[in-house]
């Protein structure tokens, strides 16, 4: 029975993540349009796009890995989702492993990129491979400040689990945003790279690379990738809310917090052009890493 | 030095070495026109480039003299030191246009030669280039020759959408509407 409960809860969580991620994506398109002095598509435009992609009636494949690439991506998103406490007290959204471990999560979150990279490689499109090399390089860039922020939190609060960090915030009554501000800054700067919006949209780079790894994928593959990206956006936002903003007691609180967090990469992105790959990598090894080091020093000093 | 004099010395130097069928100086247009046989063309191009300093190949023109039965190639050279131009004209037999490959003198001649080969059917002996350049999938006659009827070809090969038969000449329609006469110089372009 417990298994059934988990599966049912997992499906509900997935649907929530899907809907929220898609809506946020649509909001982003609307915001970008308004900043560019356009009317913009409706907020639900992403649902229409997704359903259209789903209802495409034909597809091509280049071999077995072409099927597996989107599947790997989905694994990464969904399993990460299962590991993150959505609300402070479970409720309708149970976790597979309520002691979600941050290091496990780190690896789970990069798993998708690598799997998708394999799928993109099989298509034989040179643009895909170029996009993949850029994406992996950028990943090495932003993982450094990100792991620094996480290590700082682990040192400061003596736990490596997300729920542990949430409990710490609940007990002390302050958000980690204030308890370890430098870690928050480093993590947020790293998140700019994680979201891959401008100026770090070097992977897709529509005008240069014809959407990079996705260039041979249409219809059902693109639908899978799009849903997975939406879920993943929700995962990242919820993770940030859990780590730094004390998690959420109910859905409204969660939506407000995640939306505010989401605005940081979005608004940073709309006013920026695109970096070159090595510029992006070095950007992450500049100030974000400095903040990461300060965060670790602060954590060591404060314990 | 006077421009005319400089042209004279250049012409004299060319004449020392080559037999020219025709030569003329257009000092006002800043150019020297010489005509040579096609056998001498590579040599004179080389001479102009190496000895006279006309190191820049500006353009290669081609004229289809259908009335004379010849194709005329015009090599336009420029000397950046003298600031003068030399046009070297040579005529090929239109029925069987054959010439030596000359892209070792200027590498960019290769591009011109490929184009002439496709568009005018000139056979450059020893030209090394890919089969197709501008025209892909073409097996008709060289389309830029004047005796190639492009309209008839288009009618034959491509589907024509019905409804264009009564298409009017825009110029005539406008004139008819505004009750004017077609000027004489324009009449030869008219469809009627």
């Amino acid at each position: 029975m417990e298994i059934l409960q988990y599966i049912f809860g997992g499906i509900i969580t997935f649907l929530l993540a899907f809907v929220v991620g898609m809506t946020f994506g649509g909001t982003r398109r609307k915001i970008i349009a308004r900043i560019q002095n356009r009317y913009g598509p409706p907020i639900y435009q992403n649902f229409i796009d997704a359903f259209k992609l789903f209802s495409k009636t034909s597809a091509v494949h280049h071999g077995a890995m072409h099927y597996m690439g989107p599947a790997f991506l989905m694994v990464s998103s969904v399993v990460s989702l299962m590991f993150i406490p959505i609300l402070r007290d479970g409720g309708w959204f149970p976790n597979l492993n309520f002691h979600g471990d941050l290091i496990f999560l780190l690896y789970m979150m990069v798993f998708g990129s690598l799997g998708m990279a394999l799928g993109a490689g099989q298509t034989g499109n040179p643009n895909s491979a170029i996009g993949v090399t850029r994406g992996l390089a950028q990943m090495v860039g932003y993982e450094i400040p990100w792991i620094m922020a996480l290590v700082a939190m682990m040192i400061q609060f003596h736990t490596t689990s997300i729920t542990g960090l949430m409990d710490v915030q609940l007990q002390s009554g302050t958000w980690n945003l204030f308890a370890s501000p430098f870690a928050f800054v480093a993590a947020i700067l790293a998140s700019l790279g994680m979201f891959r919006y401008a100026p770090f949209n070097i992977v897709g780079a529509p005008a240069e690379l014809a959407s990079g790894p996705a260039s041979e994928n249409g219809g059902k593959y693109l639908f899978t990738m799009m849903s997975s990206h939406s879920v993943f956006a929700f995962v990242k936002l919820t993770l940030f809310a859990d780590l730094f903003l004390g998690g959420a007691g109910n859905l409204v609180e969660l939506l407000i917090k995640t939306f505010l967090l989401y605005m940081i990469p979005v608004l940073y992105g709309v006013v920026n052009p695109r970096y070159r790959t090595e510029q992006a990598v070095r950007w992450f090894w500049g100030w974000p890493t400095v903040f990461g080091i300060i965060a670790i020093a602060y954590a060591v000093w404060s314990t | 030095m006077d421009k005319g004099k400089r042209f004279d010395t250049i012409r004299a130097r060319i004449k020392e070495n080559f037999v020219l069928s025709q030569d003329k100086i257009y000092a006002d247009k800043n150019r020297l026109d010489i005509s040579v046989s096609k056998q001498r063309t590579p040599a004179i191009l080389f001479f102009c480039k190496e000895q006279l300093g006309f190191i820049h190949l500006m353009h290669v023109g081609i004229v289809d003299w259908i009335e004379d039965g010849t194709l005329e190639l015009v090599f336009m050279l420029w000397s950046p030191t003298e600031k003068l131009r030399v046009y070297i004209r040579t005529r090929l037999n239109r029925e069987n246009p054959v010439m030596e490959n000359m892209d070792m003198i200027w590498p960019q001649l290769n591009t011109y030669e490929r184009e002439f080969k496709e568009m005018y059917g000139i056979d450059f002996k020893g030209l090394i280039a890919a089969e197709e350049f501008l025209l892909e999938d073409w097996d008709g006659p060289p389309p830029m020759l004047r005796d190639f009827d492009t309209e008839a070809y288009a009618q034959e090969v491509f589907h024509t959408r019905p409804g264009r038969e009564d298409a009017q000449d825009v110029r005539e329609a406008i004139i008819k509407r505004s009750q004017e006469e077609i000027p004489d110089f324009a009449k030869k372009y008219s469809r009627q």
Partner: protein
Amino acid sequence: MNVIFLILILFLVGAIVTAFAGKWSSLLQDGLFILAVTIPAVLFFTQVEMNQLVGWTRGGIHLELGLTPFSYFFAILVLLLGVASAIYSVGFMHGKARKSYYYFNYLLTIMAMLGILFSRDFISFFVFWEIMTWASYLMVVMNGTRTQEIGIKYFVFSAIGAYAMLMAIVLIHAQTGNFLIQDFIDTYPSLAHGRQILIPILLLVGFSVKAAVMPLHVWAPGSYAYSPMSFTSVFSGALSKMGIYGMVIVFVTLLSHLPEGGLIRDIIAWMGAMTAVIATLWAIAQDDARKLLAYSSVGQLGYIVIAVAIGTPMAMLAGLFMAFMHGLFKGALFMVVGAVEKQTGTTDFTKVTGLIRKMPWTFLTALISIIALAGIPPLGGFIGKWMLYESLILSDHYLLVIVAFFSSTAAFLYAYKFLFGFFLGQEEEEWADVKEAPITMLIPMLALAVGSILLGAFPQLILKPINNGLISLGFSDSYGKLWETSTLFNEWGDKVVLQPIIYAIMGVFLTTLAFTYFRNRKRTRYVSTKDISTSGEIPLAHENLTFKENFFQPFLRAVEPVMKKQIDWYYREFGAGLEAIFNFTRRIYSGNGQTYALYAVIFLIVLLLLNGNLFGQ
């Protein structure tokens, strides 16, 4: 006769018989070769008893052989890889020259490694160590390519290690009066402080050479890359672990008694970390699969060194677990390279492309092993990485975590390059007729890959022997506490339960795969890799658009400052500097009487000037 002797003698006899059997029949030779590895392996797992010592005394020197739980763990790795690679070798060496030479050296190497693990005294340890070095040296130069450069490098560094070790053994004998390892460990705490520091350092130098720790790693990339691939899987997978074996013993039994032990450990851990980073970056820059894996081996050994140098129980478990995993996946990966080399004749990424449809099983092996290498859950590689990070954080090595994590993330780059280089990308006409590798090569490869999956789900299979070994070295028992239910724990009480994760991953993966596969199944058509959206352009048959040259150029540009000079450069400069000094000294002895007279005068003047200081009051 004792079974330990029997095993060693079987190997030796097997080596000689196999080498000569080639004269009669190639098939007989292959059969004998496999038997010569498997029979001792079976004997080892069925007959050898733990902690049973056999020894004899000749000329006042007492020698002992025996098996401890700790060496038992390494013996599992050696024999597993040894048998797998032996079966693979039969396929790999089929139709190649100098088969007898190869088989002979292969068996000698395995024997020497087992001998090292059996040795309970320093003399036999050293003798087996040298046999191992020599046999592997002969393998390195076997191909005859770049023998001078590669072979001499390996030889010189092995010699440095061996001399250091020999010196330590002489010192030990001077202290204890015999060569028994256990005696030395017992008397170590009562030694003079200078000796207490000197002996472990000399031993560590000897072991670091084999474990390819940073300043001593120069030999490794070349030697791994240029020996036959079937041997390299043992070379990199098992032989390099002999260095780890020795290091762990030194760390645990000797350095833990020293007040300065922590410092030495930290230095070695940082050396390991630098090895991991630099070797990973160099691996990314390689265009040859063999060299890529060779650098990657050095880098992975770097993690293991970090872990064993930190030396908390969890780090030790992590290091040894990673050592085992590294044997499995790197062995399989070198086998993959060997298979590709055998079927296509080259290992250059820029030449070979699009083999996935030609060699699907080889690709599957490579995929699983690469996922394990990258440390991605749910495969075994992740468990080692998880324990490494947790133990580093718990033992306050914060910067080491960052460095280790950096090189682990950068490892994705070469991991992807490896898979993409051989198997993905556009198919090339030249490789249209490539066939899958023969079955004798596939089975060991796939077996090792299955091992990687198995250890991801049931790490206790190998954590239990590791734990037993560590207990025998004097660690407290952490097995019962930590590993009973496939749950990863740390001391703060955070945990990862492995099996539900695996089910979840498999469930989501299969669901999504089924969706992408069955949705519009009938209207999904296969198109070749030439049929891609390249602005409507049609690549002709001879045009291959696969992106291979300067693969990670943007990343390498970003890390350019670190990679300007290889370590080789420092050694070369050091050599050049020495030469200059020698040149200068040679000039002093000019052979001219007047010059010598001048020296004498200068000496006297200096003497007079310093008179007051030297001989004065």
